[in-house]
Structure formats: structure tokens, C-alpha cells
């Protein structure tokens, strides 16, 4: 009898907990549902209507997108963004893991001083570098190319990922690489054959975050790219807003959603890595 009441009380608490959580969730995810519903409404109904989803959904907003933006097909923007994102991922994985290995596994002179510098760059506002980097790339005649957007990724300037990978490498059992070293393996062998394969979770987390950051980046492409056929999805969307926003609200909302899809897809596929990666970033080791 008392077991039953305890059980009832427990499930009532569970129900209240779910109701509370769902209520917060509904508010938080409202904008996402709104953009999905809005993309299926006629332009005139998007802002004013309180219904989340239209009674009779239309696809006109999406067919409009096949006409492209300013005579440039949407696919161009996607290819450009994809190129930058994949290029960034490759660069970050190589350069950051090399630096992380050096900090975690090699005892070289000046390591602690350089490590302090690396932590310092972690907190450095990017905007201090904005103007001089622009001047540099302008002198090198690299404006309106992808080099300024990619070079830093190949030079391990994303200190956060160096830090993330380093923490992971430090927690690997030291016996492994000591055994390898006794067998006569050099650092390159240990890095490539032992440490990297064991670091897969950290590498995957870094790769996904890099992809999403590159996809969402707005300031970098805004400054460095000035021909519309080199634009990324974010810049294409901004161009759409400037040109057609009033005339074609529906198209703008549909394009906003389409621009989000790769990030949302990555999130669905890898949410474990993302959430856990985020969680461990705040904790020691």
C-alpha cells in the first residue's frame, strides 16, 4: 500500500517535471517552429498570423528559391560555404592536433611560457586582429579570395581546439606512449599511430564545431569577399534581405530555413559529441 502511494507520488513528480521542462522547451523552440511554419505561408500572412502552421501550406517560397538570388543559383552559395567549412575542418584537425600533441606530450624548453601565450590567445577578442589582418591580406592581394578565411585554420589559431585536444591527450594513459617510445618509436609515429586514433572523440567534436562556426561565420566573409559569386550562404542570405525582403518575405524566410539546415542536420547526427564536448570544456581535465 505504502509502496503504491510512493510510486504514485513519484510518477506525479515525474509528470510535473516533464510538464515544466516541456513548457520551457516550447518557448525556447518557438522561433524554430515559427520559421518552419512561416516558410509554408504566403508572404502576407507570415508576420501577422498567430497560427504557427498555415491551414493550407504552400511551396511557392521554396520554388522561388530555385530562381536564385541576384541571378546566382542558391547552389553556388552552398558550394562556397561547403568548401570553406570542409577546408576549415581539415586545417583545424591537422594544425591543432599537432600543437596539442606538442603541449601534451613533448618536453621542450619554453613549453610552459608558450602554453601561457596560447591560453592568452584563447581570450583575445578577434576584433583587435581584424584591421591589421585585413591590411596584411590586402597588401598580399588576397582580398576576394578564400585564403584569408582559411589560412588561420591551417596555422592553429583556434586556441580553443588546441586546448580541447590537449586536455584529451593528457588524459590518455601514459604507459601507452612510454611503451612505444621504449620500442623506439619517434614522436611522429606516436602521434600518428597511437595518440590520434585514441583522440577520435576530441577530433570529432572539434570537427563539428569548426564546421558549424565556419558555416555561421558572417564577419569574415563580409569583409573579405566582395563578388556575389564567391559569397557564402550567410552573405547570400544577407544580399537577399537587402534586395527582396519587402517584395518577397516568404522567399526570405524559406531561405533562412534552408541556410540553417546543414547545422541542424549536424546537430541531430552528432548531438552527443556536441553536448558532451561543451560540457567537458567547463570542467577540469
Amino acid at each position: 500500500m505504502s509502496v503504491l502511494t510512493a510510486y504514485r507520488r513519484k510518477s506525479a513528480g515525474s509528470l510535473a517535471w516533464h510538464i515544466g521542462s516541456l513548457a520551457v522547451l516550447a518557448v525556447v523552440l518557438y522561433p524554430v517552429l515559427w520559421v518552419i511554419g512561416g516558410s509554408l505561408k504566403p508572404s502576407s500572412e507570415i508576420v501577422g498570423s498567430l497560427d504557427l502552421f498555415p491551414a493550407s501550406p504552400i511551396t511557392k517560397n521554396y520554388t522561388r528559391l530555385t530562381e536564385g538570388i541576384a541571378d546566382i543559383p542558391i547552389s553556388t552559395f552552398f558550394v562556397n560555404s561547403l568548401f570553406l567549412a570542409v577546408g576549415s575542418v581539415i586545417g583545424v584537425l591537422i594544425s591543432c592536433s599537432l600543437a596539442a600533441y606538442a603541449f601534451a606530450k613533448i618536453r621542450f624548453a619554453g613549453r610552459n611560457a608558450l602554453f601561457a601565450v596560447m591560453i592568452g590567445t584563447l581570450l583575445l577578442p578577434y576584433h583587435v586582429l581584424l584591421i591589421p589582418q585585413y591590411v596584411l591580406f590586402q597588401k598580399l592581394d588576397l582580398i576576394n579570395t578564400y585564403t584569408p578565411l582559411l589560412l588561420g585554420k591551417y596555422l592553429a589559431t583556434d586556441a580553443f581546439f588546441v586546448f580541447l585536444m590537449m586536455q584529451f591527450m593528457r588524459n590518455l594513459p601514459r604507459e601507452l606512449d612510454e611503451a612505444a617510445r621504449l620500442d623506439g618509436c619517434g614522436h611522429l609515429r606516436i602521434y600518428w599511430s597511437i595518440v590520434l586514433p585514441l583522440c577520435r572523440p576530441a577530433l570529432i567534436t572539434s570537427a563539428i564545431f569548426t564546421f558549424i562556426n565556419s558555416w555561421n561565420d558572417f564577419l569574415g566573409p563580409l569583409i573579405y569577399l566582395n563578388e556575389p559569386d564567391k559569397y557564402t550562404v550567410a552573405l547570400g542570405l544577407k544580399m537577399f534581405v537587402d534586395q527582396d525582403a519587402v517584395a518577397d518575405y516568404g522567399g526570405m524566410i524559406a531561405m533562412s530555413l534552408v541556410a540553417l539546415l546543414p547545422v541542424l542536420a549536424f546537430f541531430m547526427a552528432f548531438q552527443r559529441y556536441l553536448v558532451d564536448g561543451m560540457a567537458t570544456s567547463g570542467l577540469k581535465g
Partner: protein
Amino acid sequence: MTHIQDAAPERLVKSSGAQDGPGPLAVPAALKRRGRRENLAGLLFLSPWVVGLLLLTAGPMLASLYLAFTDYNLFDTPKWIGLQNFTDMFGDPRWQKSVRVTLQYVVIGTPLKLLLALGVALLLNQNRRGQAFYRAAFYAPSLIGASVSIAIVWRSLFSDDAVVDRAQQLFGMEAGGWISNPDMKIYSLVLLTVWQFGAPMVIFLAGLKQVPNELYEAAEVDGAGTWRRFWNITLPMISPVLFFNLLLETIHSFQVFGSAYILGGQGSSCGPADSVLVYTCYLYDQGFANGRMGFASAMAWLLLITVGLVTAVLFWSQKRWVHYEEGAR
């Protein structure tokens, strides 16, 4: 990461190489050779990072420090003008406005965001099925929140006669969208950052999970209520995580750009009446739209100094309120 200052790779006391030295006398030579090899390997592995540091971080920082004292438009040679950029700045009403807007954004947005993050983390921190689902769902806005798409959605939601306006009318509040209202627009930007509370929430949740259950049980035996338990156990135990979130979110808030730029509307005007003209928007406007690279560099250095000071104050204050466990690394 909570102990940023303690996180240096632990000094490795014993080199494994010491084991293969044949005798006490030979050790120094072998160690020396080994040390040289290690230095070379370190340099090799670190070379991309070092090049990046010199070419893309340290070099540009020095260059922008110099440019901050010049009149420079990217094409003519920089002309040394001493402190004039700074005196111009302090007398510039648009610059003053941008400082006010940014402070509003940081001072209101960051605490609200952290409060919500902590609140939801406390709500989720129960051993129930579905927790992982909620955690992931609440985290999603942090990934998409800074995108152009969401800024566009935000502008629509807060425009005249849109959802927020209608909801206000429902509660009998003054009607009108926030986007067209110079006094309210900044709050739509604040709410956009608050909406991205998922990232600090996930970190709070991880911190809450590390609080030993025995502490709560002991407190319950002593008759401590929910509030006392939160105040005397939970809060001190997660204070390192709170410090980390506060530091990171504050630094981030100072640097908001894309959302404000899109929410602001046409170009970098961030209107109406510069209502969401955050600091970086004005920096962009002056440097890239008006070609005042020297002035923009001076602005950037002032931002760096401000962020540095805020970081220093936070680190200094942590001695008073951040509780680190004995023996923690």
C-alpha cells in the same frame, strides 16, 4: 579549464629516458641529447602554431597598436597623429552611443542568460528519463543563434504587429514592435543572447552532477531546507563553473556583431537612432565603410584593454567567491 592559471601541462618530473641511461655518469649527456631531440620535436610539432601566432596574432596586434596612433585609410601611408584618434573617439556622440548600447547588452544580457542557464540546469538535474533529450534540445539555439537566419527570424518576430507585439497587446501592454522602437530594440538583441542559454546550461549541468550526494544527505539530516541547501552546498560547489561561464559569456558579449548588424537593418547603421549600434558594429562602420582604419584600430585596442581589465577583475574577485576543492588540480 576552470583553473586557467593552473592548467599548464604538469611539469613532467621524470623523463622516461632516464631509464635507458647506462650509468650515473652518462646520464647528463644522454639527457642533454634527449633534451635537444625533444626541443627539435617540440618546434616541429608547434611550427604551424608559431607561424600563426607571429603572422596572424602577435604581428597584427603590434601593427594595430601602431595604427591606433595614425590616420590611415588603407591606401596612403599612415600618418602619425598621436592620441587624436582617442580624443576624437571620446568626443564622438556615435561612439558614446555604441559604448552605452554595448554596456546595456553585456550588463543586462549576461546575468539574465546565466540565471536562466542555471535555473534550467537545476530543473534538469534530476535522475529522470528524458533528461538527455531536453539537454540537447535546449542546447540547439546556442548553435544557430549567431546565424544570419536567426537574426532575420528575430527581426520578424519583434516587428510591428508580429507575435511579440500581439502577445503584449494580449496582456494590455503598450502596442508596437520592438524593432521600430529605438528604446526597445536593444532588448530584442538582449533576448537573442538570452535565448542561447543552452551552452552555459550544459556546463552548469555537468558541474551540478559532480556535487557529491552525501553533502545533500547530510544537510537533510541536519534539517536544512531546499533554499539553505542551494545556498550553502550547490552554489559554493559549482562556483568554479559559474566563474568559467561568467568569464566566457562576458568576453563573448563584448564581441557581438552579426546579430546586431542584421537586426540593425540596412548597412552598418544599426538604426533606428543607432539603437543596436554595438561597439563592433561601429568599429566595422568606421574601419570598413568609412575607411578610418587608424580610428578603428584605436577602438579595437580600447576593446582589448576593456576585456583585459574585466578578465583581470573577474580573476581577482574569484578569490572571494569561487570555492575550489582542496587538492583539486
